[in-house]
């Protein structure tokens, strides 16, 4: 046994060394966890602060009122916002525009993700990288670029019914959310065994039949993830909307615009109340996405050989 190995019992200092290693390992894990938890605390703190703020406001109003409980329920900022026809309009427009933009996103993401995942062609990597542009571009620039695009034919001819109109809201949301859906769908198709499709072709299928009967059904959880991600992305869209669709009340106002407009008129309570609605929606979306990806991971894990 070499005197350097240090792994043999009886060598002087073995116990000390062992306990030092144990201690060092503990310190390492504890310090990483502490650094990580600082960020977690920030996220948690932000959400909690919003809830506390609204609660505090409601309580303050209720105390001044003669009917404490009735006032707590009906005068709290969330209830007030929900009664406001402007906010009601913005909720409806958000739901409709996000859903349409998410449908549009997956409609393009499925073929695009499939081509990028399965069909080799010259410049595929370049196209792949190009599709990241809407994700990394500053949001305001996306809006501005859309606006400029609609100065040119043939877009110019449709500008009147799109720019600063409801379709503009959907287009601006879609322009960004589609990129996220494409990423998700490409990843989904990458994870599906291409052999299955080849077997289907050898059994007599056209490529479309192999796609529709074999690959697409396997991609359905990925499709759900892409849809919810695109939906959530659309809900949070603001910069491009502001420039391309404007922030006109009862016209192109969606929830993120509402937060901005409420802040602008000094109604912080209203802004926070709308924010809470959006936070709640985002958490639901997050849960759906998580559930879908866990499901598909479980399905993959149960395939034994």
């Amino acid at each position: 046994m070499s005197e350097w190995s240090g792994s043999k019992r009886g060598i002087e200092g073995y116990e000390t060394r062992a306990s030092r290693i144990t201690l060092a390992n503990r310190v390492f894990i504890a310090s990483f966890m502490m650094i990580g938890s600082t960020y977690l605390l920030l996220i948690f703190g932000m959400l909690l602060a919003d809830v506390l703020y609204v609660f505090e406001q409601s309580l303050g109003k209720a105390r001044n009122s003669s009917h404490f409980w009735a006032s707590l329920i009906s005068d709290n900022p969330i209830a007030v916002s929900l009664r406001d026809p402007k906010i009601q309009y913005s909720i409806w427009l958000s739901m409709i525009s996000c859903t349409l933009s998410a449908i549009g996103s997956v409609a393009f993401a499925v073929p695009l993700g499939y081509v990028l995942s399965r069909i080799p062609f010259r410049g595929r990597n370049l196209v792949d990288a190009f599709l990241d542009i809407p994700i990394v571009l500053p949001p305001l620039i996306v809006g501005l670029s859309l606006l400029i695009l609609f100065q040119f034919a043939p877009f110019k001819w449709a500008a009147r019914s799109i720019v600063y109109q409801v379709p503009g809201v959907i287009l601006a949301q879609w322009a960004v959310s589609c990129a996220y859906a494409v990423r998700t769908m490409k990843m989904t198709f990458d994870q599906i065994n291409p052999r299955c499709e080849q077997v289907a072709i050898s059994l007599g299928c056209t490529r479309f039949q192999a796609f529709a009967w074999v690959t697409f059904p396997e991609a359905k959880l990925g499709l759900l993830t892409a849809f919810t991600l695109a939906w959530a992305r659309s809900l949070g869209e603001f910069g491009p909307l502001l420039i391309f669709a404007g922030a006109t009340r009862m016209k192109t106002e969606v929830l993120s615009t509402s937060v901005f407009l409420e802040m602008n008129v000094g109604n912080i309570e209203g802004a926070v109340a709308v924010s809470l609605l959006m936070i709640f929606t985002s958490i639901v979306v997050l849960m759906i996405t998580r559930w879908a990806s866990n499901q598909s991971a479980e399905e993959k894990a149960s395939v034994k050989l």
Partner: protein
Amino acid sequence: MICLDDVSLNAGAFRLKGIHLLIPTGDYGVLMGKTGAGKTSILEAIIGFTSLTAGSITLSGRDVTRENPALRGIGYLPQDGALFSTMTVEENLAFALRVRKVEKKRIVARVKDLAELMGIGHLLSRRTHGLSGGERQRVALGRALAFEPSILCLDEPLSALDSETREQILQLLVTIHKMKGVTTLHVTHDLGEAATLADRLFRLVDGKVEMLNTA
């Protein structure tokens, strides 16, 4: 009959040149070679997933060099089985027949026969998740045989199995070949497998196919 005449192909890292290979009708051909020698590329060229840079492929007397894989009529069994995981075992077995728009009654009867032959009658209504390795290969083999192909291509069908299951599937392959007499190309790196099955044994070394025996 499977006949490769002076075939050259590039598939990724592989450059195979001047490949000759002949398996007469009804024979069981085994192609051996080390992992990474390009065995699978040859198989894929026959099935039609890899296009040739030179030479020609003839199957059952028909030149299929430029034919679409869907028209070649080859039963294909990949190493991992590649079962359709959103379908039941029954739907997997019926797939080729459904594609061919065979009458429903005939599909049901055919699937029943196949399941019996493969020893998977009790699994028909199961999804493919959770099937054992041996069961998966039985389903995959049944699926490949469903449309009574004249050619069968097997890509290391036993290499992912434990030794007991491997022996069972090996016997199944022997039985089925005796019964159906389908012209088969079986790719493997295992000499034992090759010795049990092969009417004709080939070896792929340094991008060349050598014939080792004739039955």
